[in-house]
């Protein structure tokens, strides 16, 4: 089927489309979606491309259904995904929790727009950052990647599938309208250079010596339906056999396992890039399309003699606390620009040992670089 995948080479492509091509290369063969601006190109291209490679792209009746369907497909053995924007992401929260407790690898792409509520569907926002972390009820650990270019949207979509497969948990690609809708250079590497991870599968004979959900292990093979495992998979708090329980000790074991498998391996998930940080006295910490404004601002400020560098976060959840701690010990101040009224700045403040200043602007546009430069000049003075 690889002849139907996007071939290695250079393309000029829209972010949303690059996301679909990346998903296919990562082995995704099931897409369930519901149209929503500004993510609809993902669903449209998936509808064109998935059947060509023997996959399925189905329109569900709502995002509750999309999210449920991809978990069902995941347990049928599929690498499965959906794509949405804020209002749909809200509806998905219910079954994001289901994917978490059922340990179903799925990828959810959120092309963020301006909010709240219906907000401004066609314009950019980064208002779903905290929702991606805390939106579903109960205690969850989530994983979220933030692309700032078409290339990163491609690369991080593949990464998201790999992480989902390894951690058996929902993984978010938290893009935004600018990254989703922009056309830009995309380089597709040779396939052998692209890492593609496959989940470990449980087989019936393994069940003689181990329970299906071994909470003493961070990673367990997944029982796929139709292979004879006959495992119960439950949305209720469940024991190692998958059976519902109200036992405190078991509940504690399950939660420790679900949270721990991500917390204990956060190092494997964290991705970031530093620019001009060697002699920096101020660090700008940015993610998503805001990182592009921030880079421009850092260059401009440097040209005015301000020693400032950029730390671009490609992973925002699990939060890279150690990185922030380390950086904050090197610089005198941290600036966090976001297209919202203060979200990721909170964990930055929690872990930074230096003053942290936000640059917040979210009426539906990118933060223009000069706004960040102004803040840097005030801080430098």
């Amino acid at each position, binding site marked *: 089927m690889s002849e139907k995948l996007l071939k290695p080479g*250079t393309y000029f492509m829209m972010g949303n489309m690059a996301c679909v091509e990346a998903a296919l290369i990562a082995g995704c063969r099931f897409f369930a979606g519901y149209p929503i601006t500004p993510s609809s190109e993902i669903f449209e291209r998936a509808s064109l491309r998935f059947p060509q490679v023997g996959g399925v792209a189905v329109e569900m009746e709502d995002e509750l259904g999309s999210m449920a369907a991809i978990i069902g497909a995941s347990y049928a053995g599929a690498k499965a995904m959906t794509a949405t924007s804020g209002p749909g992401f809200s509806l998905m929260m219910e079954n994001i929790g289901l994917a978490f407790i059922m340990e179903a690898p799925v990828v959810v792409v959120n092309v963020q727009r301006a909010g709240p509520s219906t907000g401004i569907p*066609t314009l950019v926002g980064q208002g779903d950052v905290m929702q991606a972390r805390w939106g579903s009820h109960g205690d969850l650990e989530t994983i979220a990647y933030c692309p700032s270019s078409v290339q990163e949207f491609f690369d991080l979509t593949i990464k998201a599938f790999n992480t989902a497969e390894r951690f058996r948990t929902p993984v978010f690609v938290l893009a935004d309208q600018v990254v989703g809708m*922009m*056309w*830009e250079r995309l380089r597709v590497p040779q396939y052998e250079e692209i890492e593609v991870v496959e989940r470990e599968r449980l087989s019936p004979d393994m069940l003689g010596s181990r329970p299906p959900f071994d909470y003493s292990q961070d990673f367990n093979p997944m029982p796929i339906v139709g292979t004879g495992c006959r495992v119960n998979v439950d949305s209720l708090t469940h024991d190692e056999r998958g059976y519902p329980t109200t036992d405190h000790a078991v509940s504690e074991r399950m939660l420790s396992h679900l949270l721990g498998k991500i917390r204990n391996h956060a190092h494997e998930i964290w991705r970031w890039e530093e620019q001009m940080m060697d002699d920096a006295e101020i660090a700008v910490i940015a993610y998503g399309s805001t990182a592009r404004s921030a*880079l421009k601002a850092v260059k401009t400020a440097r040209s005015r003699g301000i020693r400032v560098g950029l730390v671009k976060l490609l992973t925002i959840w699990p939060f890279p606390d150690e990185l922030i701690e380390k950086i904050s010990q090197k610089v005198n101040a941290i600036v966090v620009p976001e297209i919202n009224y203060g979200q990721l700045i909170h964990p930055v403040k929690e872990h930074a040992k230096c003053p942290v200043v936000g640059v917040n602007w979210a009426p539906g546009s990118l933060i*223009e*670089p000069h706004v960040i430069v102004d803040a840097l000049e005030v801080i430098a003075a």
Partner: protein
Amino acid sequence: MRWEVRITGLGGQGAITAGHILGRAAVIYDGKEAVVTEGYSPYITGGWSRADVVIADEPIDYPLVTKLDALLTMYQEGLDTNLKLVKPQGFIITEKTMVNAAGAGGLRVFEVPALLIADRLGKRILLNVVMLGALVGFLGVVSPDAVKRALADRFPKAAELNRRAFDAGFEVASRLLRGGEVSEELIGEGEAI
């Protein structure tokens, strides 16, 4: 170097397509970097649309336009509303019959009779390609060959017609840049309908 261009028109005029062709040409055939972003009025049909194209020799940081090196407009309001975004040393390209460029202040304005040329080529739909040819000529950043190859990629069946439309627009730019006139004979290049 970094150049910022806005191409704007009314729905159906092909402004966004022209932007995509320009961006693709720069990236795929000229080895430059480019970002194209789109904008629309809230109407499904009949409203304005625009493509913003940032072209650069090096990786592009801020992906949106801030000060335009070139504004290409195919409708009157496109000139009026975007005028303030054009740099003092920038320029404006208008479709001559659809835009009155008198209000363009002290900026350089090139009026291109693209509709007339497209009609003479037999297809009014070529309007955006004629305008693109003129833009490429005036801008001098993306090579005409690259744009023609990008056009042929996108519209393989109409490659020849698009090439003629592009060349006609490009020739208009060359003449105007040399201080010449856009003569009847130029407009009439190709078979009249």
